[in-house]
């Protein structure tokens, strides 16, 4: 009997995130009715007024599925990651930030001290003559006030707690989320724990909609705004850096269809330890110069290799932060 089947308990949480992942869930549009027919939302800060203490009060493994988006950047994020792990049967790292560290992970190019100094003291619009910095604990006459502790390193969800599945993307493509959700609701056989789901196993380039040739010889790289894109041929062949060679497919070529090169949000394909290192191999392979000075000249156009090649993946890459 369909009616007596217990509804799935679903939770969605944002940690260090921009909110785009939560919006991508809302992008299911009218399919939302199918989702709420099959699942009860028990926790979703962007949409429901349910407090942390309500989650803390739930029995362990009470939630069937938690979509956790956002990186782990402070003690509040870490607390919620561990709490939701304990309360959930399936914990999914949803989106680039919880999968790879994402855009907030770029903070690993700086230290905690550098960031606090820049934001609270040096920023042009800040007036802070006493150089007051946020403190995790502050005593006033009414008692002690607390703020979450700001960490030195940004971490991905799996660097903090055990994760069952990863759904990549910035944000994940909503259609792929529905596929995953349907699979869980219908009780279909799920892939082994730790798998990346809702994405392909090939690279972007494998089935790219743009025309590729063997003519990959580059004497100059261009930023996208410096060149008139012909709209049909491979970005790399035109000298525009595209993360396609080192990025997992499955996004539906959203950026490429919008005439923008891939930025790498779906992360590395299976078996790749470090997407940026693969990208360096790919880029170096197409430079059509042999003399060191000439190669250096071409590489001057690759202005920020670390920031471009690890835009979404710095905290999970081999060198996951700037050395201190």
């Amino acid at each position, binding site marked *: 009997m369909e009616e007596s089947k217990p509804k799935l308990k679903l939770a969605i949480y944002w940690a260090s995130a921009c909110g785009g992942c939560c919006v991508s869930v809302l992008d299911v549009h009218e399919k939302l009715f199918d989702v709420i027919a099959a699942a009860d939302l028990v926790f979703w800060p962007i949409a429901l007024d349910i407090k942390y203490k309500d989650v803390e009060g739930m029995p362990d493994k009470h939630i069937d599925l938690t979509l956790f988006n956002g990186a782990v950047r402070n003690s509040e994020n870490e607390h919620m990651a561990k709490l939701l792990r304990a309360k959930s049967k399936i914990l999914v790292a949803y989106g680039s930030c919880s999968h790879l560290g994402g855009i907030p992970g770029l903070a690993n190019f700086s230290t905690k001290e550098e960031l606090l100094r820049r934001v609270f003291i040096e920023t042009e619009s800040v007036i802070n003559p006493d150089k007051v910095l946020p403190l995790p604990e502050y005593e006033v006459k009414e008692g002690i006030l607390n703020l979450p502790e700001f960490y030195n*390193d940004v971490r991905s969800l799996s660097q903090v707690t055990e994760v069952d599945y990863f759904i990549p993307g910035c944000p994940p493509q909503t259609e792929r989320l529905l596929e995953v959700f349907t699979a869980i609701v219908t009780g279909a056989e799920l892939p082994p724990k730790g798998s990346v789901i809702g994405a392909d196993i090939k690279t972007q380039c494998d089935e790219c909609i743009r025309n590729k040739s063997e003519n990959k010889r580059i004497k100059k790289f261009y930023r996208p705004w410096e060149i008139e894109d012909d709209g049909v041929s491979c970005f790399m062949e035109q000298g525009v850096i595209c993360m396609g060679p080192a990025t997992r497919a499955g996004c539906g070529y959203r950026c490429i269809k919008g005439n923008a090169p891939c930025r790498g949000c779906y992360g590395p394909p299976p078996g790749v330890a*470090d997407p940026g*290192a693969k990208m*360096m191999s790919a880029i170096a392979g197409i430079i059509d110069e042999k003399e060191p000075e000439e190669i250096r000249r071409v590489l001057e156009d690759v202005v920020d*290799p670390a920031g471009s090649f690890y835009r979404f993946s710095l905290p999970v890459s081999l*060198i996951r932060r700037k*050395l201190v």
Partner: protein
Amino acid sequence: MEFKPRIVAFLCNWCSYTGADLAGTSRMEYKANVRAIRVMCSGRIEPTFVLKAFINGADGVLVCGCHPGDCHYQEGNYRCLRRFLLLQKYTKQMGLETERLKLEWISASEGKQFAELVNSFTETITELGPCKIKETMKVLM
């Protein structure tokens, strides 16, 4: 305790490894800090290999291939050179001293040059001290 640097050397099969072998068979002495890894061609050396060497505790990485124009596979050492220059730019951004990563061309007849290279590179790394990468990666906070 005296600091003994750990150096990983990626040597191509046709020139540089043979060159290192020549240094051995000619009974030349050179510093024992180098761990040689033979690859078929310097073009095979991926940036991932170098980064993994550092992550796993190398204080310096040496990449050696055939002289330009001499590659057994015609183009491999040029690929190596391009990757190396890009990788160097990246590791510098990450705060790794540029001296810790070195590219040199060693032919099969250059046993003496290989021995000298190992000695001078070991000296450079000894002066720099231990690489901080392993320590930095250990701490998550």
